[in-house]
């Protein structure tokens, strides 16, 4: 049963000693080798990560099987594209990136197990991965215990900050507040009906939305309902919506439930071009399943849409389609996943080291000007400064951008007054 091919490497101390010994010859070479090409491995990797003179290994940890595969596949593709592009430019500190992909199988404990495998067995220098909050919560203790670095792409509920995670998606306030301000101003929205899937992200998001609506916008919440993940019967809530006639339906229904939700709305005669609908959980990926004709007219608040008109994004979309096929669509999270390897590369080069303890502080202030969403910057709290955008869903499954915040929004994972 044993697959361990290195008997004798049992104690961590011994492993460290061996590694130190392995580094000795490299050190004796130091004065003679020129630094023009790449710095010596021993200097930039003092904690025994999988870094050689020519290669550095990172992990990709997403679900490629199970119910989340449909969402996470885009992230895997974006990360592979970024790694490819970085390698084509010469890699990180002169080292090509090699990746080890593991399958989280849409199962949170599996995520924890595989994260541990990547850190302990494979000694990866960073992990690009996780999607749902549940998987991140499962992986977080592992990252902190073994001192790894996770680049997490999904917009999420906030209330978290870790030395060992860089959150490349939006935290809740970045996504919610600007969208609500916009809808209240331009659509004169005063009453809101909140609908979400029943887990931590929609619940926290709705809590923030309710405080903002009632406290800042002077509106009212005419209903708030949650449904289990995978729920497909929305008729009762649709009837309530018809009775209460809210100005805005505010939705955070996730995954496959979306398909039933929008189809049933349409079947019930709610026309989204007349009834304002603002969602924070539908990207181009979801529309693929829902069908453009069922959701056309609804608004989504995200930081990225595939249709964004800027040179960075055009280049990114073209490269993505070239690598993964013309038919692929790119959603908000896919773009955020693409940022991960780039931010990591820049952080490593700024720190001049692969050591986690050096790149964690060096992350603050990293700027990426070539980001498809535009300019982004890493905040000292390990989240990104980003813009919020509102797009209107079109028949062809794309969004038309109708609003964009003028400035980058500061990430605030522990928002005062919204807890």
């Amino acid at each position, binding site marked *: 049963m044993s697959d361990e091919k290195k008997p004798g490497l049992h104690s961590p101390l011994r492993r460290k000693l061996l590694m130190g010994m392995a580094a000795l010859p490299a050190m004796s070479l130091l004065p003679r080798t020129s630094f023009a090409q790449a710095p010596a491995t021993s200097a930039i990797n003092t904690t025994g990560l999988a870094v050689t003179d020519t290669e550095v290994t990172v992990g990709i940890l997403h679900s490629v099987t199970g119910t989340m595969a449909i969402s996470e596949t885009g992230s895997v593709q974006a990360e592979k594209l970024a790694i490819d592009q970085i390698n084509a430019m010469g890699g990180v500190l002169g080292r090509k990136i090699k990746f080890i992909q593991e399958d989280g199988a849409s199962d949170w404990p599996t995520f924890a197990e595989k994260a541990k495998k990547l850190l302990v067995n494979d000694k990866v220098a960073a992990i690009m991965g996780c999607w749902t909050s549940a998987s991140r919560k499962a992986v977080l*203790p592992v990252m902190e215990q073994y001192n790894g670095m996770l680049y997490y792409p999904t917009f999420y*509920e906030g209330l978290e900050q870790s030395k060992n995670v860089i959150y490349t998606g939006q935290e809740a306030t970045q996504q919610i507040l600007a969208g609500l301000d916009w809808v209240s101003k331009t659509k004169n929205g005063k009453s809101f009906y909140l609908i979400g899937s029943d887990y931590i992200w929609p619940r926290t998001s709705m809590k923030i939305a309710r405080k903002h609506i009632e406290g800042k916008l002077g509106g009212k919440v005419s209903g708030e309902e949650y449904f289990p993940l995978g729920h497909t019967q929305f008729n009762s809530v649709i009837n309530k919506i018809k009775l209460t006639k809210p100005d805005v339906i505010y939705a955070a229904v996730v995954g496959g439930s979306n398909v039933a939700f929008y189809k049933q709305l349409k079947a019930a005669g709610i026309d989204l071009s007349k009834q304002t609908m603002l969602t924070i959980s539908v990207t181009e990926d979801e529309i693929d399943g829902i069908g453009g004709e069922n959701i056309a007219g609804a608004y989504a608040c995200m930081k990225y849409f595939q249709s964004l008109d800027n040179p960075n994004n055009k280049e990114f979309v073209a490269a993505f389609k070239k690598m993964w096929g013309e038919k692929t669509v790119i959603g908000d999270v896919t773009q955020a996943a693409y940022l991960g390897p780039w931010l990591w590369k820049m952080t490593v080069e700024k720190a001049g080291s692969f050591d986690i303890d050096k790149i964690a502080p060096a992350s603050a202030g990293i700027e990426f000007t070539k980001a498809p969403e535009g300019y982004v910057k890493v905040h000292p709290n390990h989240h990104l400064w980003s813009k919020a955008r509102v797009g209107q869903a079109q028949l062809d499954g794309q969004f038309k951008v109708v609003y964009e915040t003028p400035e980058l929004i500061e990430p605030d994972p522990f928002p005062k007054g919204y807890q």
Partner: protein
Amino acid sequence: MINSRFFNRSELLGFLSLLLLLAVILPLFLDVFRLNLVAKYLTYAFVALGLVMCWGYGGILSLGQGVFFGLGGYCMAMFLKLEASSVANTKIQSTPGIPDFMDWNQITSLPMFWKPFHSLTLTIIAILVVPTLLAFIIGAAMFKRRVGGVYFAIITQAIAAIATILIIGQQGYTGGINGMTDLRTLNGWDIRTDHAKVILYFFEVFVLFACIITAQFIRLTKLGRILVAMREQEDRVRFSGYSVANFKIFAFCAAAMFAAIGGAMFTLQIGFMSPSFVGIVPSIEMVIYTAVGGRMSIFGAVYGTLLVNYAKTMLSESFPELWLFGLGGLFIAVVLFFPNGLSGIWRDHVARHIDRLIAMRSSKSKKAWAIKSAADGAPAE
């Protein structure tokens, strides 16, 4: 020798080789990470062991063992979570001193049913009693009404679905779909260190063998024989004056208790409990482990669990996008070609040869002894 009566020869062989494998070979040759994985696999072996008793011997197929596994695991997790949520650790929350997920869900004080889990003793009692009690209630309600067979399997499956929905829905009290994460210490002892993992592994192996011996003991008593009789001809047992329902309830409760012990071990080993172990899919998976190992064999169940989980880990590491097909193929192959699982293969193909070898050697040594004693002038038997 007591053992020779408690275990017959091939069982003794199975017992010793399993002991050798788990207590000596694996710890010697695996690093801590892989050993921890084996520890995780073994937590399912408890469930499989329970299934051998209730399904293999008693003929009661339960597709809801995940519920009991989860209950045991959650009881343990609640204790660990409370310890990890000390006021000092949770300063940033609006209500310090309660688990983080309660704080996210606007709960401001610890619910009553959480309070007993401050005590380790009460927690251990809860791990053993709560799932058994639930099994008793289900069993009494079903078996007294003579609900059995497929109907019972369907009902246990429904219970698994209900339990998952309940846990996910009550996220303020249970952590919802995230489960309970970030468990750190057991009475101040850090369970996340490599050292702790090794100690927990040996503890688990010890408990597993205690359970194996208990299961074997039950099998050999009159009770065990009645269970088998019930499986073969339930009506005859009933007509002979036995209360079939009570025996079934007993087998089901014992299986539930084993599963709960496994669940508690799981939480300790992995530092984590989530509703993904409670639902229908994991419950059926647990039945598959037992089927692969051979549902009539106590040791087969343990080997089956190890084999399936090892295959799962290896296949998913080597073929992240295709591994489920490989695993599916394995199950189909086992069911098609080896309906009695690993233990069937062992019995039909391996054990026979071993028996013959032993018989040959003992007859040889007998002959040698006979010749020797003849030469000494002693009477040859």
